[in-house]
């Protein structure tokens, strides 16, 4: 529950009036307001600047310094105020957090100073409000990176002796500046990539004529030399690839990475060429394979940071480029169709089909205008001119937009990822807060009720048991308890719910909580005990003759007052047979607390088994009616 709406708790409790007439069970006692203090102003003196606020404002967050008794350490008896020798600027934000429930991060503050202050006041930075959270995280990350960079540059001076040979090799590959050997390797591979690319190019240049035959490309003239060069390059590349494969920390991930695929594609043609014979049929395919050798140029991207960034931005811009392509395609199809039909009439028209007109449209829209296809009819010329005008707009306009989109999308992508991660974190926080508050209720239900029970029993030494919850929390829990009573169902947490669902084939429920109750005398039987609906599959055969049958009943136990001291320690957890139903009995005159308990076999009393409808001992209780097969809310 957000502390800001604590002030509305009286209203929420008043609104519970709507539940009272329909409730079938009596309501639990309201928590007593033991020390009803008037709300008072307290003065906080932070390095001379005085802040004043209500005491209840600070008590909204009892697990921080200001909300707990920890601030008493700072109380100055002479001036009757709390003195903190800290930064008053940041304190302003801290105090606003108590007032509004939202913690803000001021941009002018240094991040580490702010973190220190938050740590002092016991406030977790994760509750910074969404308006300032992004900024806070950014600054924190920058700071952390700066620290890390400083550490790294320090570390780089020293030698790190404890790396294995494999790890040193990997480090050498990834970071050529770590050692001279790595640097040498880096330059050698770069050189050979360049050599390989240049040989591929030069291979095709016509090299002058050999007397007695036509002009040959250099590749065929000096085929041996080129073959040797190619072999050498491929040797180097293969060795490099194998070394990287060996050194990679995760071989599987390395094999799947883009760079390694490029490496493989670059050297494959050579090996395939070695293997294949000089057959006429496959030589066509062989030639195609040679095209893939050009991929060696992409190996440069390991050497160039800029290429990598370009590749990344293209990838991130893909949707924009895709849209541009799509709209272009639409325009091309439209204009090609129109041109085809416009030029259909004219004789000897080059526009023989719509796909043939595609060429004209593309050439015109990109303002190339080769002139190999021109329209001859008037309609064709009109539409052709419209086509070229719109081409200018369609092509020329988005290009600067895409260029500016590069930087925008690049940053935005990063921010979108950040926001997605933060959104997940934010949802997790909200979920944690929700489960925290509902878990707090369940937890305090178990603890607090025990305490109340013991108080009623008159054992004052147990009062300190359990966490002391604030008045607001106890009132909130009382409200939820009233709702449970109204609907005759109880709040449980998710895991228990799952367990209950799986327990339709009733096994022994592991009792985790009953031992704590077994020692209390005077526990009597029930009110509002309900049975889960019996389903058809009762594995009665599982538990042959134990007292605890397959169907158990979770019941609530009422702790009655001390005027019935002679009650036996019986619990109405019943080993009911298959077609017994228990009618919940709500007519007890004492309204007290209720506890969910699951009985263990040894704790069962013999009387629990014998009678199908249990009689609740005690003079004030009604005799339950005839058991029926259906679960029923108790009729009054």
């Amino acid at each position, binding site marked *: 529950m957000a502390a800001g709406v604590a002030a*509305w708790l009286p209203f929420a409790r008043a609104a519970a009036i709507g539940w009272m007439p329909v409730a079938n069970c009596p309501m639990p006692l309201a928590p007593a307001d033991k020390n009803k203090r008037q709300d008072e102003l307290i003065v906080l003196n932070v390095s001379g600047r005085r802040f004043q606020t209500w005491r209840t404002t600070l008590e909204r967050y009892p697990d921080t310094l200001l909300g707990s008794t920890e601030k008493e350490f700072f109380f100055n008896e002479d001036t009757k105020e709390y003195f903190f020798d800290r930064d008053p600027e940041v304190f302003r934000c801290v105090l606003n957090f108590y007032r509004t429930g939202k913690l803000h991060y001021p941009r002018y503050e240094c991040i580490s100073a702010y973190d220190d202050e938050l740590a002092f006041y016991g406030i977790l930075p994760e509750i910074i409000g969404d308006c300032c959270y992004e900024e806070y995280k950014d600054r924190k990350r920058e700071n952390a990176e700066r620290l890390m960079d400083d550490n790294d540059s320090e570390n780089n001076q020293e030698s790190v002796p404890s790396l294995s040979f494999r790890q040193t090799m990997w480090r050498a590959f990834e970071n050529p500046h770590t050692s001279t050997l790595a640097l040498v390797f880096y330059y050698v591979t770069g050189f050979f990539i360049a050599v390989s690319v240049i040989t591929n190019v030069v291979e095709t240049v016509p090299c002058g004529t050999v007397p007695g035959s036509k002009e040959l490309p250099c590749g065929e003239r000096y085929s041996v030399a080129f073959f040797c060069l190619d072999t050498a390059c491929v040797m180097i590349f293969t060795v490099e690839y194998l070394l990287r494969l060996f050194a990679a920390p995760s071989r599987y991930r390395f094999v799947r990475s883009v760079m390694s695929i490029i490496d493989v594609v670059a050297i494959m043609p050579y090996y395939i060429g070695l293997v294949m014979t000089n057959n006429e049929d496959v030589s066509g395919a062989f030639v195609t394979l040679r095209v893939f050798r050009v991929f060696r140029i992409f190996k440069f991207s390991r050497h160039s940071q800029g290429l990598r960034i370009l590749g990344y931005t293209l990838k991130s811009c893909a949707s924009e480029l895709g849209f541009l392509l799509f709209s272009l395609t639409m325009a091309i199809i439209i204009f090609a169709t129109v041109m085809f039909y416009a030029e259909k009439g004219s004789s000897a028209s080059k526009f023989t089909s719509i796909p043939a007109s595609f060429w004209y449209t593309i050439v015109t829209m990109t303002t190339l205008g080769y002139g190999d296809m021109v329209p001859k009819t008037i309609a064709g010329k009109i539409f052709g001119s419209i086509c070229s005008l719109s081409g200018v707009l369609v092509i020329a306009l988005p290009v600067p937009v895409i260029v500016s989109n590069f930087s925008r999308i690049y940053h935005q992508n990063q921010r979108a990822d950040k926001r997605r991660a933060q959104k997940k974190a934010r949802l997790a926080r909200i979920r944690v807060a929700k489960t925290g508050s509902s878990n707090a209720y369940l937890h305090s239900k178990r603890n607090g009720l025990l305490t109340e029970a013991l108080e009623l029993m008159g054992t004052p030494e147990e009062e300190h048991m359990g966490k002391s919850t604030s008045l607001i929390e106890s009132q909130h829990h009382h409200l939820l308890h009233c709702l449970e009573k109204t609907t005759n169902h109880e709040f449980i947490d998710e895991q228990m719910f799952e367990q209950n669902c799986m327990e339709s084939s009733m096994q022994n429920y592991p009792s985790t909580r009953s031992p704590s109750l077994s020692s209390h005398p005077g526990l009597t039987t029930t009110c509002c005990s309900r049975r889960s609906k019996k389903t058809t599959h009762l594995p009665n055969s599982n538990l042959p003759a134990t007292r605890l049958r397959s169907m158990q009943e979770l019941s609530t136990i009422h702790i009655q007052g001390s005027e019935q001291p002679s009650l036996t320690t019986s619990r109405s957890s019943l080993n009911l047979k298959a077609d017994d139903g228990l009618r919940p009995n709500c007519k007890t005159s004492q309204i007290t607390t209720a506890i969910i308990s699951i009985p263990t076999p040894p704790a069962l009393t013999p009387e629990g088994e014998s009678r199908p409808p249990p009689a609740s001992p005690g003079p004030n209780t009604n005799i339950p009616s005839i058991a029926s097969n259906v679960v029923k809310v108790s009729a009054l």
Partner: protein
Amino acid sequence: MNLEGLEMVAVLVVLALFVKVLEQFGLFEPVSLEDEVSLALMCRARPEGLEQLQEQTKFTRKELQVLYRGFKNECPSGIVNEENFKQIYSQFFPQGDSSTYATFLFNAFDTNHDGSVSFEDFVAGLSVILRGTIDDRLNWAFNLYDLNKDGCITKEEMLDIMKSIYDMMGKYTYPALREEAPREHVESFFQKMDRNKDGVVTIEEFIESCQKDENIMRSMQLFDNVI
């Protein structure tokens, strides 16, 4: 001039572009719609004075001060609309869905049915619930249940209310909530309250039956100590 079909189309397209260009130069006035001016009315309300509220309600001065401070904290504009109301109320019930019940509450607090609850409405309602007699409180509860304010509660109205209460429990309950649970609860409620078995519960039947029920009487006394 012999214009064929497609050439006709081409000429029409050219004419259309021409008209568009002229429009750009402002020579043709296109028909423009009036811009809808949407006034975001900032609803603000200031409550009556403290003395008047003291007269109208049964709260002391200090209690009114505390109530108003809390009210203003969540609703700085001074009035609550339904969305706000639902959002505030849902913070108390993290496990379930309290929006339907909050709507019914809102309609009960909003006595003049103008879609917003001012501080006077708020305090008037609270005064009845927290400081009124038991009969007043029962009256208020009846008013809450009677959704269409016609003086009697039908089974459908009660079923809506019951479902909204059960919705607040959420999914994770023990025992697991079944579909028929609200309906059964309504049946038992009508059995208890509807004296003449005519299918509706009037205000007299309601108050009479509640006064006979010890549990209800006792639970009504719980509200004495809320503030």
